[in-house]
């Protein structure tokens, strides 16, 4: 796509956001309903109370049944969460409350609204975990009122209307919104909030669906949308020939990228293994298809989320072995449980109030607070590795000091694991990587959190996405510090690795392997193959000499001429 970004409301010009998952998507906009309008205060019904109460009972049951059905489709932990929501819709106390309000003459929608309000206040007053459940209650209330008033139901359509995949437009997306989606249903994501490392971005890349985030005014878009998830542009009502043209160009680009195959290496043969980030065994087929040489980040949180207790040793062992067996003789780096902050676990609450959870007891800190969960995980990993030929490496998240690294390495040795490493995502660990290197076998840089902590910018906030830019020279300096001088291999498993130009810069900085969502592998493989290590080093030097992220990107590209040949 060409042309500078224009804000919405400016005719039918393109709208500019931040492209976070490359590719072209085209389809009708589906704007996620933000909220169902509040029924008017004091609204009354005509007719008898009996039929009005029946309407409420039917609407509650319809919503409960729908939640049950979605739970069945999502399976696993989704079933449990949505099942609990269905129980709320079928709550006998709530039904009595609504019926009493209808008896006073209030119309069904208003009666529902007021009855829910009472419980909502109760939960909000309790705060904490219960306070957060108020959102669940609001969701059910809005669904019931939508049924009663005939307005569109909030939530994401699970099937493409008429079989045409839609462009999902929202202020922001919650994991619950997207649990049941696939690329057969959604052509692209466009959100107003969110940054390059938000969950929407990570999910879109995992699904291989184009996505544009931090797109101001997105929820006012309608009609057919053409989304360029690389350039971050959204066009409204494009002419059919325009859609064809953009799609053809994208297909040509993909074919060109696919011409480069085999292990990751620069044009002069410097090896940079290309690995995949996995959120669970379900991501394995896409990783293999994209030619991943192994796994650079196996997130284990999926096993633990939304549960009242830790998964059993056997369940863990099976999930770990499924991935190890998929990469015979390949490297598989497993990250131990990273709970806390944006991924709270019901059975691992923080030991005290945390006004700032991102700076709280999370990652390895939680592992040391509740060592039996970490120990159980390490033992399950050791058993899973028995009899498989994969090279298992285990690493801990959120490590700040050499003492923590030593503690983790000792825990791994006790469990019988041969190779222990740590993630570098706290600036302190990057600054003193040589100290940490005395105790561990390898490092992996998590650029998302490293940027969050280096720039003191919450990665979930779209408004701060400029500070989440991995091209910021300060972040590149931290990467250089983490990599240098200690002789231990150091990879990158953050989203930065999937940016083809930045991948060349990282290789130039001495990063030994790159791990990313499978969809990013072909472009990074092709970009590396078109440049020598000397070019990559020159690009890295130019980027670090720049004064801003934007300038660093431009300066590096001058040393990487192959990128434009590839249409990157």
């Amino acid at each position, binding site marked *: 796509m060409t042309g500078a970004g224009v804000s919405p409301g400016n005719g039918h010009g393109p709208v500019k956001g931040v492209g976070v998952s490359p590719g072209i998507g085209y389809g009708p906009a589906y704007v996620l309903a933000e909220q169902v309008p509040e029924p008017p205060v004091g609204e009354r019904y005509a007719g008898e109370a009996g039929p009005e109460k029946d309407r409420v009972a039917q609407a509650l049951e319809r919503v409960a049944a729908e939640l049950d059905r979605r739970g069945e489709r999502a399976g696993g932990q989704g079933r449990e969460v949505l099942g609990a929501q269905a*129980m709320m819709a079928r*709550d*006998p*106390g709530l039904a009595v409350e609504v019926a009493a309000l209808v008896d006073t003459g209030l119309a069904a929608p208003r009666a529902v609204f007021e009855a829910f309000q009472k419980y909502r206040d109760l939960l909000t007053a*309790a705060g904490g*975990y*219960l306070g957060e*459940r108020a959102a669940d209650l609001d969701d059910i209330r809005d669904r019931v009122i939508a049924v009663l008033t005939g307005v569109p139901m909030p939530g994401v359509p699970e099937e493409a209307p008429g079989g045409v995949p839609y462009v999902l437009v929202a202020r922001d997306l919650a994991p619950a919104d997207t649990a049941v989606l696939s690329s057969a249903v959604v052509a692209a994501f466009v959100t107003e909030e969110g940054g390059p490392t938000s969950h929407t971005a990570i999910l879109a890349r995992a699904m291989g669906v184009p996505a544009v985030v931090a797109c101001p005014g997105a929820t006012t878009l309608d009609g057919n949308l053409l989304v360029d998830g690389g350039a971050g542009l959204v066009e409204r009502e494009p002419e059919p020939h325009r859609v064809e043209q953009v799609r053809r160009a994208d297909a040509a680009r993909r074919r060109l990228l696919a011409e480069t195959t085999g292990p990751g290496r620069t044009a002069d043969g410097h090896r940079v293994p290309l690995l995949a980030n996995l959120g669970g065994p379900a991501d394995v087929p896409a990783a293999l298809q994209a030619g991943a040489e192994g796994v650079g980040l196996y997130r284990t949180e999926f096993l633990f989320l939304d*549960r009242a207790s830790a998964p059993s040793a056997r369940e863990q062992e099976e999930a770990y072995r499924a991935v190890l067996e998929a990469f015979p003789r390949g490297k598989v780096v497993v990250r131990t449980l990273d709970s806390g902050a944006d991924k709270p676990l019901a059975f691992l609450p923080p030991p005290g109030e945390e006004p700032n959870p991102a700076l709280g007891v999370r990652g390895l800190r939680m592992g040391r607070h509740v060592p039996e969960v970490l120990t159980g995980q390490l033992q399950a990993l050791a058993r899973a590795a028995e009899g498989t030929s994969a090279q298992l490496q285990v690493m801990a998240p959120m490590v700040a000091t050499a003492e923590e690294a030593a503690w983790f390495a000792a825990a791994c040795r006790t469990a019988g694991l041969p190779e222990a490493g740590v993630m570098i995502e706290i600036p302190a660990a990057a600054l003193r990587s040589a100290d940490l290197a005395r105790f561990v076998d390898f490092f992996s840089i998590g650029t998302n959190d490293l940027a969050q902590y280096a720039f003191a910018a919450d990665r979930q906030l779209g408004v701060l996405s400029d500070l989440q830019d991995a091209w910021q020279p300060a972040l590149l300096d931290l990467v250089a510090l983490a990599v240098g001088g200690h002789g231990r291999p150091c990879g990158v498993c953050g989203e930065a690795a999937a940016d083809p130009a930045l991948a060349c810069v990282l290789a130039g900085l001495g990063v030994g392997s790159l791990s990313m969502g499978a969809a990013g592998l072909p472009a990074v493989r092709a970009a590396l193959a078109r440049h020598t290590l000397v070019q990559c080093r020159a690009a890295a030097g130019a980027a670090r000499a720049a004064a801003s992220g934007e300038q660093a990107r431009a300066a590096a590209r001058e040393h990487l001429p192959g990128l434009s040949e590839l249409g990157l």
Partner: protein
Amino acid sequence: MAERRVTVVAEVGLHARPAATFVQAAAKAPIEVSVCKLNRDPVNAKSILAVMGLDVRQGEEIVISAEGEGAEELLDELAAIASAP
């Protein structure tokens, strides 16, 4: 009226999965059953919203009460759920 006094030991308190399991068990019984924190008004144990609203946390004591046929068995079952770690 039969009752059981139970200390909730689960780390999540009587929230999340334990609350759902507790209410599901209460709801399938044909008799009335209530639950309260000490010296507080009892609520319907078959109501997930009311049970969550009690905000029972780890280490707190609750009283479960029921009357009628099968009350003892039901209370034993509910007490076991509420006291499970």
